[in-house]
């Protein structure tokens, strides 16, 4: 009886239902559908074209023994750790300094943030040129008298990943700064005054009072940076194209290459599925927390 009553009322909700239909369709077909398809292909023996020969987890076995995939994983781990540490540190330092009532604040903010407005392709090409071992910074060092100086990281397999870190920190530090600055501005001025009255030195106030209060800003920045790590593709393509050798290969590029160039769909989708699982494992706790917050606010 209650159900019947509720149904009567759907009349006024009909336009909302219709308005939601495109998004629901996208979610069901283009998100869920494609994801399941990708997972399914990874369980088959597909090569150039998808087939339905179920082979269980064999592709994952192959993947676990694929040198290029292993290199990609190792690269992204190194990259991720260095990039996140550096971007968070530099971003926070910049924000903390800009927050000290400096002159030309908005100019400085613009300077630190403008790289973020540019694409990874542009970022990659600019840095590739500057790090060029024959005509870039190395030559500059030679010209100003350091004849033995070497700055050829971009062509050295053991160093190339650091060049990706430099470029992407340049690209993203401003974003962290913007988030942190918003967090700092959200801290009550009274807290600063109280701590000053207590005679605490500035660095102590930061470490023991302000940073703990900025958990939210750090969480946001971390989630954003971590996502960009997993998605890293364009930068590697533009800057090094995975080279030298496979020294700057990354998982996203592995998937693209095996999908569209090497024609090994099953392996590519197995790699994509692995990325998916990683993201879900990282995001799920955060999502749970956000969801609870939303539910408590009575939304969604």
């Amino acid at each position, binding site marked *: *009886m*209650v159900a019947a*009553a*509720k149904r*009567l*009322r759907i009349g*006024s909700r009909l336009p909302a239902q219709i308005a939601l239909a495109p998004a629901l369709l996208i979610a069901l077909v283009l998100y869920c559908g494609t994801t399941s398809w990708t997972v399914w292909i990874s369980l088959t023996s597909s090569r150039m074209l998808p087939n339905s020969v179920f082979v269980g987890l064999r592709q994952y076995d192959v993947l676990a023994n694929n040198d290029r995939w292993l290199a990609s994983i190792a690269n992204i781990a190194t990259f991720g750790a260095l990039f996140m540490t550096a971007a968070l540190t530099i971003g926070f330092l910049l924000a903390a300094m800009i927050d000290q009532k400096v002159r030309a604040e908005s100019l400085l903010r613009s300077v630190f943030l403008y790289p973020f407005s540019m694409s990874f392709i542009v970022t990659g090409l600019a840095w590739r040129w500057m790090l060029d071992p024959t005509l870039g910074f190395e030559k500059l060092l030679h010209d100003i008298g350091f004849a033995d100086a070497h700055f050829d990281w971009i062509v050295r397999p053991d160093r190339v990943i650091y060049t990706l870190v430099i470029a992407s920190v340049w690209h993203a530090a401003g974003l962290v700064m913007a988030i942190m600055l918003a967090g700092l501005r959200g801290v009550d001025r009274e807290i600063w005054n109280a701590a000053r009255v207590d005679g605490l030195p500035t660095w102590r106030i930061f470490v023991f009072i302000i940073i703990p209060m900025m958990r939210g800003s750090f969480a946001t920045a971390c989630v954003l940076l971590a996502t960009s790590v997993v998605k890293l593709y364009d930068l590697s393509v533009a800057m090094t194209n995975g080279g030298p050798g496979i020294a700057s290969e990354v998982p996203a590029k592995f998937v693209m290459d095996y999908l569209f160039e090497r024609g090994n769909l099953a392996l590519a989708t197995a790699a994509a599925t692995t990325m998916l699982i990683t993201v879900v494992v990282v995001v799920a706790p955060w999502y749970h927390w956000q969801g609870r917050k939303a539910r408590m606010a009575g939304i969604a």
Partner: protein
Amino acid sequence: MNQAPNRSSVSLRGVEIAYGPVRVLDRLDLEVAQSEFLVLLGPSGCGKSTLLNAIAGLTEVDSGEIWIGGRNVTWEEPKDRGIAMVFQSYALYPRMSVRKNMSFGLEVSGMKRPDVQRRVTEAAAILQITELLDRKPSELSGGQRQRVAIGRALVRDAGVFLFDEPLSNLDAQLRAELRTEIKRLHARLGATMIFVTHDQIEALTLADRIAVMRDRRIQQLGTPHDVYMRPANKFVATFVGSPAMSFLSGHITEGRVFETSTLRLDLSGYAFTAPPSVGMPVDLGIRPEHVVLAPGEAAAIPARVELVEPMGSDLLAWTRIGEAALTVRLSAETPVAPGDILPLMFSTRRLNLFDAQGERL
């Protein structure tokens, strides 16, 4: 505004509403007569807004029926129910001028432009907001905003006006001013009005009848006088009246006498709703103004003054009889200081007796 009588009764029959597992209204029945001013009074979260939203059609009821003006409107759209509503946060459309705010609903309903203008002009005149008509809501003060919100309801020419705590965002003075305004409006329009508040002064001054709500239920439905003088239970007794009613705990002895360790009180003048049994524990409720000073009276009860609060026109003495606390309202000139012993008498007719469950005896 319109001379045509446009008044509707409202009736709720067994209305139940739940948000998921949380039940907010429980088989609620309520009859509001034509042209009546009903106030829903209750503490925060007791379901007043939910009830009002159900009448307006903004919340689906899970079971039960809602009738307005003799029609079952349970499943009708808000706009078809012949109601108008005023909200606590004013809920004015921020990007529209005052005029547009007031005419929006009429334009939606397809009314002709001259008629819309006429109604807006009339309503604006009644509320004295004519000179504000071309401003944006952000350019108005809180009191002006709420006037506009009332104006927006007024132009709808509805049979039932619903107010959800319309005054609670205003300061005390504006509140009093708009309260009288609403009362005048009710007299002028004769429309049925249902007014939600948790402010008892508003309830007592405005209402024809008050419905005191708590915990998904209406605790008492009656005239302000009834609710104040003959509260149906201890909750209503404490919730209405400021400062709150004082309670003395004791029991009934032979011959309808109320007895505590420190006092005995003859209850022969009290109008019992049911005959009390001997020995039953009861709470005796006394309003501060129903206590009189009786110097030299042999039967007077001695109370020790702990604190004196001058209130301008009168003063409050916070006293104790034995261990029990009793608040007494006295005239401002009474010479009284902490430590004094006051001889007090109660008028039996104005006492309130509650049984162990808190129900009126």
